[in-house]
């Protein structure tokens, strides 16, 4: 009977209900948009933190202070510390060597190309032999560790002294294409290279010439030196055990201790690299966390404020609509009371109506909001936002709360309403 009553009463006041649904769905759409954007980045970050692979950034200890601006400012190389190219082997000598899937050294500088000034130049391994005591044929380089480096054309050969890649931005700016010849004039020498491919990575390398390490060492006069090393490793994400160990190693049972000790956490591997190579600092690097994550992290609070504002204004809107409804239906409420309905039974009817409004509004809002977030994603981040499915239940629950919050104040009038006053039109 209750559901029949609810259905009939809901259908009876359709016009006002539609208005309420529109109010709720507008707020829901706004909340969906913000939520989808935030959760998309949050999920990417969580995935990154929990992934079974991570990159570790190795730099000389004195460089740690510059790490924050790394990649942005190509600082002059003078007066800076370097790593020995020879010490790369040491990284593959650590206890967890088998979990290191690749190593790529980097040496960054600037070089002038023709009359139009300097461009950044990065020297690295592409697929370079690195003989190890237990594997003479070991090869490594960026082709192995940076899956997202996309080359149109061909990768340069590491042993060639005249091949390089041009980043997509610098290629456009300087009119370079596959087959172009450029002369790189560095501080200590020059090299003429043929562009074998155009590189697109979505990051700083797009604006640089990427050459085999040897070429860059030649033009900078830094033979056998590298500036930083990128290490890709198979790791175990920090988990319950690692946190327990971090909290109190004494609390570990002997079995747990053994297990913790033999688990390749990224922190463990980074620590071992620091031990194996003198005077370096090794830190895990997170792509999303340091990119979009920073943006979202900072505006998360703003999003919360906007969400609350949307919530409140929609609730106020629903509230005024509900108020009118209750005034209009005063006779009906009075009758129910006269028939012996308890106050809560009448509340339940009106709050259920509000819930239905919230449900519909949330559904509609989710649909509209998902579209909007795509639009924002494309314009702000330049990428399509993956719609997180969790957004649907969260927004629907929020929308129901909006409708309920808006109904609570008007519903208090139900308790105050005296059937006497509405049932008999006279005194």
């Amino acid at each position, binding site marked *: 009977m209750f559901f029949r009553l609810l259905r009939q009463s809901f259908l009876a006041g359709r016009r006002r209900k539609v208005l309420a649904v529109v109010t709720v769905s507008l707020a829901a759409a706004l909340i969906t948009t913000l939520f989808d954007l935030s959760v998309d980045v949050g999920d990417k970050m969580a995935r990154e933190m929990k992934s079974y692979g991570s990159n570790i950034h190795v730099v000389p200890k004195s460089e740690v202070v510059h790490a924050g601006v790394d990649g942005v400012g190509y600082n002059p190389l003078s007066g800076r510390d370097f790593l020995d190219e020879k010490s790369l082997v040491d990284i593959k000598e650590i206890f967890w060597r088998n979990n290191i899937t690749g190593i790529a050294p980097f040496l960054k500088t600037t070089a002038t190309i023709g009359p139009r000034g300097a461009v950044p130049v990065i020297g690295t391994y592409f697929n370079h032999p690195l003989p190890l005591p237990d594997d003479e044929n070991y090869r490594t380089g960026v082709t192995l560790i940076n899956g997202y480096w996309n080359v149109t054309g061909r990768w340069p050969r590491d042993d060639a002294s005249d091949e390089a890649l041009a980043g997509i931005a610098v290629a456009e700016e300087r009119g370079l294409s596959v087959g172009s010849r450029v002369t790189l004039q560095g501080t200590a020498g020059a090299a003429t290279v043929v562009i074998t491919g155009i590189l697109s990575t979505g990051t700083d390398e797009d604006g640089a010439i990427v050459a085999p390490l040897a070429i860059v060492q030649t033009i900078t006069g830094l033979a056998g030196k590298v500036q930083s090393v990128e290490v890709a490793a198979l790791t175990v994400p920090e988990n319950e055990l690692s946190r327990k160990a971090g909290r109190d190693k004494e609390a570990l049972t002997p079995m747990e201790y053994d297990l913790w000790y033999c688990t390749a956490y990224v922190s463990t591997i980074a620590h071992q690299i620091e031990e194996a190579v003198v005077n370096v600092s090794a830190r895990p690097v997170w792509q999303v966390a340091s990119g979009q994550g920073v943006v979202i992290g900072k505006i998360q609070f703003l999003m919360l404020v906007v969400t609350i504002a949307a919530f409140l204004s929609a609730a106020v809107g629903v509230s005024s609509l509900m108020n009118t409804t209750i005034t209009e239906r005063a006779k009906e409420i009075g009758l129910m*009371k006269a028939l012996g309905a308890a106050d809560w039974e009448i509340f339940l009817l009106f709050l259920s109506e509000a819930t239905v409004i919230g449900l519909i509004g949330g559904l509609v809002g989710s649909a509209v909001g998902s579209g909007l977030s795509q639009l924002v994603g494309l314009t702000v981040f330049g990428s399509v936002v993956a719609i997180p499915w969790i957004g649907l239940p969260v927004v629907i629950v929020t929308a129901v709360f909006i409708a309920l919050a808006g109904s609570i104040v008007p519903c208090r009038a139900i308790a105050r309403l005296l059937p006497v006053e509405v049932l008999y039109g006279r005194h």
Partner: protein
Amino acid sequence: MDAITTSVIEVAGLAKRFGTVTALENINISIRQGEFVAIMGPSGSGKTTLLNILSCLDTPTEGKYILDGIDSSSLTEQQRTVIRREKIGLVFQQFHLIPYLTALENIMLAQHYHSMPLKDEAMAALSRVGLDQRWNHLPSQLSGGEQQRVCIARALINEPAIVLADEPTGNLDERNEDLVMDLLKQLNREGRTIVLITHNPDLGLLTDRIIRLSHGHLEDVLP
């Protein structure tokens, strides 16, 4: 059983004041099981105030109101709600049917608040007032007389101790008035206690007894 134990309504020394205005003063009424009583009086005589108190929608300022053995003047709002759903059937001048529910559903709603809706029982109540053919009609699709009969069926569905009918024919034409009054008479003959509130002396004559109110006081009680 003697007359005292079967009295359904016992009102003693009842008064109702709104601020300084006295609506009712020193009301003493006793209505026996199965009686058909009219409460009559001109507008402003306190009829409606008395009706509200009798139907447990309002509480007296002083005095006692004992309904079916329960002193309702000392009850909480929640307890009075229970009394309303179990002991009182209300018939209104303006019918007060829920506009978006069918005739049948309107009756089932009263069942719902009382205990649980039972379609067959509600249908039987409709056929009792001769409207079983029109069960699926909305109030707007029914004539005034039909609406009032639905209202009476609703008032009776929970087998209340008393039926309080407030000007049940006030909005009806003569033919429907007769129909409704016949129905009430017949229900009375079947043992229902009915209290009719009206200013219409013709209707009063159809009852067993008339209680007259004037300026908040009882005038006299005809046998």
